[in-house]
Structures are given as structure tokens and as C-alpha cells.
């Protein structure tokens, strides 16, 4: 017995609307924190910005990623439990009482409504009944009860019953949205790939590849940027399946994966071709430049040498440990190309030529010749965001349901009118009373209009 009481009070707690209000306010207040403290930064930066004490607090309470923290998600879970409990507690009795067929009613209930009116009509009982029904129907009421008992007719009519279920539909929609969000966060991913023009990438977690055919920028007449565009081709089993131009706001969608235009730049590890010139160290004279294509060999005019273009970095850096050259950023801060110098068939040197520092390395050692990098043609890339979120459609279904729920909850009101018509002398007395679940001010007006219409039909007759 005692155990049941304990269980009951816990249940009442979870099923109370007060809990809903408190959780909603708690969610509102706690959500502010994450808009003030920047989210998803490296943890050290919080210690630097807020000091050790607050840094500890931020780390312990997971405020660096608070919308995914245990305590924040717990609030959402509590709200969900609350919605389930409330629905379980309230929905079945509501359903039963709203859909119960009204067989009869005690006319004295009419006196309890704040919207009530008694009218005397000169018409007979039958005609009065017909008129009231006609007026109610004109106001789009459905007659749910029409019962004659001797010299009394009882009518019960209602309109907008379905509006009562708007809140329940809205609650269901919240559920669908949250399920979609959870589903997407577990089975989806988000990735980014820069694709060089003309090259191809494998799409993660999919059985097709993507090629960038072209990247270009559109401008307004004023010179401001109008749009970034990429032409993408989907390649599946070695065959071109689909080609589409994408731009910001217009992604490519293929097999559940979306590809978005998200950034652009120039390649940091490849170029199309380089312009190189022969420099005679004895006379300090530079010959007109010649061009060499990526991976190809070109004769150096005016000499017995030839060069092959083998490497490029946009921002030269050297790793001492692995003794390799790499680009330390995507910016063209310190561009350099690597060439192989041949004397006939013999490889004699593999120097790096620096665009900003000509002559830093003597390209053809032991001779009076040097090579100078005069220019190069980079390859643009387009930064493509790749997302797969299988929950998105579930979320959209949820928002659709929410739209229906809102429409019913906020714009469809449940109005009910009870009428008792009694013969009195030569005429009848019509007593009407009505209620609405929302918008009482609007109903006052509608009720008056209905009463007036009933009176008016009498004067017309």
C-alpha cells in the first residue's frame, strides 16, 4: 500500500504540467551559457581565457560542448519523459470524453455557461427547431444530438472537435523530430574535401566517386561576389552517372549524400606548369623563360640541359626528422617548385627553385648556369562539404506533423452549443448556452451572432 503511494507520487511528478514549465524554463536559462562561452574550442583555450578555476568548472560541466553534455541532454530526456507521462495520463480520458456520444443532457447545464441566452420566438416547436439547426449549420456546426421529448426539443451541436487534438499531435511531432536528430547524429557524418579541378575523390562510406570538372566565381557588375560554382560529376563503376552544377544553397544529392559548395582555393602541392628561365652567372643575364608542364621534360633553350617538373609546395617547409619537404599551409606564402636537371640522359641535380628567393640554391652546381622560377600556374580547388544525415527526412516529417498540430491547436477551436426549445403559449422559448476551449472573446461574438440570427429568422417568418 505504502509502496503504491510512493510510486503514485513519483508518477504524478513526472506527469505534471508544472514539471513541463520548470524544465522549459531550465532549458531556456541553461541554453544561454553556450551562447556566451564559445563552443567546441580546444580545452586549453578555456583555461587561457577564463583562468584555472573557471577552466576547471567549464571542463567538469562540459560547458565547452554543453548542448551535447550529459546534464543538458538529461533535461531533454526529462522533457520527453514528461511528455510521455502527460500524454499517457491525459490523452485516453480526453479521447473518451470527447468522442462519447451525447444521448441526452440536462437542460439546466445551459444556465451554467457564461455564454447563454433565452429567446422567445413566435414559431411553433418544429419550425423553431428547424431554424436553430439551419443557423447552426450555417455557422458550420455539426448537429450531434436532436432529440424531441414531448413539448421540448434538445439540440447539441459542436464544431472544431479535432482542434482538441492539436496539442497531442504537436507533442508527437516533437518526438519524431528528436528521434530523427538522434538517428542522424549516430548514422550520419560530416566531412570536407578539397578537390582539384580535373581530379577525383572517393566518397567516404559510399560506392561512388566524385570528379570536379570546373570551378568558377560569378560577379556582380559592382565587382562583389555573386556566386561560387562547381561542376561535379558522379562516377560509379567507372561510368559517369550524373553531372551537376552546384553553388551555395544548391547542393548535389546522390544516394543519401549531399555535396555542398563550401570554400575554394588554389592547390598547395601541384601546379599545371612552371615558367623557368636560364640565368648566366658570368654575365648576370637572364634568358627569356620557357615553360615546363607538370611531370614532363622540357629542353632548356640555349643550353645542353633539360628539366622535368616534379614537385611544388605553396608554403615551403622542411621536416628535419623525416627530411621531407611539405607545405605548411594552403596559402601561397613561399611557393617553390622542384625540378630534375638532366645533362642528356644523366640526372645531375634535383634542386628546389624558390619564387621569392631566386638563386638561393644553385640549380646546376659546378657550372656558370642557374635556373630561375619566373612564374607558375596553379590549379584551383573547390572545397566540398560532404554530409550524410539519414535522420534529416525524419526531422522534416516531424516538422510537417508539427505544422498540422499547430494549425489544429492554435487555429481550430472546439465550440459546443446546447439548445433547449420548449413550447410556450403560441410560440416557443429557445434557451442556448455554449462554450469554447480557446478564444472566449471571439466566441462571445460568434455566440451573439448565432442568437441574433435565430431571432432574425423569426422576424423574417
Amino acid at each position, binding site marked *: 500500500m505504502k509502496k503504491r503511494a510512493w510510486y503514485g507520487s513519483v508518477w504524478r511528478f513526472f506527469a505534471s*504540467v*508544472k514539471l*513541463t*514549465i520548470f524544465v*522549459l*524554463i531550465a*532549458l*531556456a536559462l541553461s*541554453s*544561454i551559457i*553556450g*551562447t*556566451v562561452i564559445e*563552443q567546441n574550442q580546444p580545452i586549453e583555450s578555456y583555461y587561457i581565457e577564463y583562468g584555472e578555476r573557471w577552466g576547471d568548472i567549464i571542463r567538469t560541466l562540459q560547458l565547452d560542448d554543453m*548542448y551535447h553534455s550529459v546534464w543538458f541532454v538529461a533535461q531533454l530526456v526529462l522533457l520527453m519523459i514528461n511528455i510521455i507521462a502527460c500524454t499517457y495520463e491525459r490523452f485516453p480520458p480526453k479521447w473518451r470524453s470527447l468522442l462519447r456520444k451525447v444521448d441526452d443532457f440536462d437542460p439546466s447545464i445551459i444556465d451554467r455557461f457564461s455564454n447563454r441566452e433565452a429567446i422567445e420566438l413566435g414559431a411553433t416547436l418544429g419550425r423553431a427547431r428547424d431554424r436553430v439547426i439551419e443557423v447552426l449549420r450555417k455557422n458550420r456546426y455539426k448537429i450531434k444530438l436532436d432529440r424531441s421529448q414531448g413539448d421540448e426539443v434538445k439540440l447539441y451541436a459542436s464544431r472544431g472537435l479535432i482542434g482538441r487534438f492539436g496539442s497531442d499531435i504537436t507533442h508527437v511531432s516533437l518526438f519524431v523530430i528528436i528521434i530523427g*536528430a538522434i538517428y542522424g547524429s549516430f548514422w550520419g557524418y*560530416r566531412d570536407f574535401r578539397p578537390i582539384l579541378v580535373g581530379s577525383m575523390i572517393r566518397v567516404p562510406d559510399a560506392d561512388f566517386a566524385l570528379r570536379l570538372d570546373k570551378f568558377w566565381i560569378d560577379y*556582380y*557588375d*559592382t565587382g*562583389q*561576389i*555573386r*556566386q*561560387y560554382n562547381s561542376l561535379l560529376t558522379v562516377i560509379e563503376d567507372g561510368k559517369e552517372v550524373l553531372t551537376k552544377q552546384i*553553388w*551555395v*544553397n*544548391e*547542393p548535389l544529392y546522390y544516394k543519401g549524400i*549531399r555535396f*555542398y559548395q*563550401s570554400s575554394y582555393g588554389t592547390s598547395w602541392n601541384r601546379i599545371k606548369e612552371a615558367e623557368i628561365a636560364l640565368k648566366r652567372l658570368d654575365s648576370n643575364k637572364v634568358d627569356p623563360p620557357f615553360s615546363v608542364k607538370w611531370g614532363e621534360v622540357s629542353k632548356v633553350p640555349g643550353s645542353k640541359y633539360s628539366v622535368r617538373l616534379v614537385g611544388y609546395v605553396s608554403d615551403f617547409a622542411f621536416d628535419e626528422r623525416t627530411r621531407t619537404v611539405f607545405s605548411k599551409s594552403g596559402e601561397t606564402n613561399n611557393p617553390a617548385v622542384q625540378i630534375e636537371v638532366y645533362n642528356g640522359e644523366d640526372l645531375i641535380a634535383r634542386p628546389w627553385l624558390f619564387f621569392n628567393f631566386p638563386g638561393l640554391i644553385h640549380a646546376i652546381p659546378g657550372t656558370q648556369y642557374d635556373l630561375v622560377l619566373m612564374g607558375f600556374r596553379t590549379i584551383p580547388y573547390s572545397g566540398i*562539404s560532404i*554530409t550524410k*544525415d539519414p535522420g*534529416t527526412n525524419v*526531422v*522534416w516529417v516531424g*516538422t510537417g506533423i*508539427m*505544422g498540422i498540430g*499547430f*494549425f489544429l491547436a*492554435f487555429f481550430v477551436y472546439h465550440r459546443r452549443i446546447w439548445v433547449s426549445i420548449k413550447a410556450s403559449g403560441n410560440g416557443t422559448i429557445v434557451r442556448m448556452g455554449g462554450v469554447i476551449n*480557446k*478564444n*472566449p*472573446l471571439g466566441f462571445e461574438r460568434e455566440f451573439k451572432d448565432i442568437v441574433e440570427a435565430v431571432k432574425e429568422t423569426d422576424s423574417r417568418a
Partner: protein
Amino acid sequence: MTEPKVIMSLMFFTMAFAFYAATALFYIGYWLLRREWIGQTATIMAYIAALATTMVLIARAGESGHAPFSNLYESMILFVWAITIGYLWLEHRYKIKVIGAFVMTISFLAVLSASLLPYRFKSVEPLNPALQSKWKWLVGILEPMGLERYAIGWLDFHVFTTFIGYAAFAIAFGLSIMYLLKERFEARKKGNFLVDSFPETRILDELSYRGIALGFPFLSLGIISGAIWANYAWGTYWSWDPKETWSLITWFVYAAYLHARVTRGWRGKKSAYLSIAGFIAVVFLYWGVSFILPGLHAYA
């Protein structure tokens, strides 16, 4: 193109500004002095102000070549327009002019703050890449008629619905303030000339609720259409950026308000405070986030 062509919209804006100032003054005058002619003048002024605001929006659309909802200044005008139209409907329907002293003052303050915005928030700019989104089906319908440049998209829908919501909340806020004033004097059981002309607390409470019951679904539509648009532009429908989060905070507060009305102990005064808290959240969502907190939504 160095000199933006905003002469027409500026002219209408100046006109609107003057009429909003007059409208607010006349409504306050009506509230304090209770002369019928002051009230009638106030209503006429309000209609002219509404017309001028409509003209600002139309002129602005003509000048920029896109729907006039693309920066802070334009959105302020839309906000004021929606409050004023909403108020005029309310007055037409319920014939309670004293509400104008509060609601039209909010309109005037909004126009005033729009006029004080620095120039960079007012200039007519072509849309940046992320702001260009048009419904393809609509473009398809308009194209044969040569009207495709008038097509709108998720951005326009998002801004429009959001601001209908904000305006409804602003009206509800004004009504909640009136409710609290009236309630306070009624609790003392003393008449006061300031609140005697107010409608009953029951009506103020109900009208305030009506405002929120209209604003809430529109705010939700705004959030959802924003999410759809974000999903197109950034590949994710929700990224907890400050604007998004604050819209959700506002949504939580008004959701609390709606549930408060179902609970007996939370009606009236407590729900009026929630309505005020909700509107403070709206103001922060609208201005605070744009000016104080950085994020993807920084342009408006």
C-alpha cells in the same frame, strides 16, 4: 553604382517616422486625456504610418531588386509594419484604443532605433551567395511570364514568418505590461486614472495570449524554414549557432507560457511575467545576438 538609389524608400521612411511619432503621441494623449477626437486622430495617423511603412518596403524592394528582408534595417521596417498592421486589426476588431498607447509606442521605438542604425546596416546591397535561395517551382511558374526575378525562396519565407512572430510577441508584451499595471492597481482596490481606461484584466490577459498563440506557430515556422535553408546552405539543419540557440531559448520561454496557461496557479500574473521574459528574449535574439555574439547569422 557608388551612390545607392534609396531616395524613394528614404523619403517614405522619413514620412513613416514622423507619423509614428505622431501616432504614439496621440495614443498616449488619448490614454491620459481621454478625448475622443485625440483617439480618432491617433487611428488616422496610424493608418497613414502603416501605409508609409508599406511604401518603404515596396520602394526598398524596387531599389534592391529583391524582397526587402535582407538586412537589419529592412527587417526592422518589416517588424514595425507587422506590429502596426497587427495592432490596427486588433483595434478594428475590439475597439480598444488605449492599447495603442503601448503597442504603437513600441512601433515608434522600433522605427527610432532603425533610424539610428549605422549606415552599413541600411545600405542596399546585392545578396551575398549564402542569401540567394529561390524556390525552383516558383521560378518555374514565373519564368514563362518573364517575372522570375520576383521569385522568392526560403530566405524570404524565413524572415517573413519570423517577423510576424516577433510582431505578435511585441503586441503581447505591450498587453502584458498593461495587464500587470491594471492588476497591481486592482489588487489595491483603488481606482487610478492611469488604468481606469484599460480593459478588464481578463481581456488583457486573453488578448496577450492570443498574440502569443499567433506568434508561437510563426516563430516555429521561422525556425523550421531557417533550418531548411541552413540545410541547403551549410549542410546541417541545426548547428547551435547563437542565433539558432537564442531562437530556441525564446521558443522554450513561450512554450513555458503556453503550458503555464493550462495550469491554474500559473495564470494571470505569472504568465504575464513569462510573456515579458519572452519578449526580452526576442529583443536579445534580434539585436543582442547580431551585435554582441558572433556567428553564422552575423549579417542580420
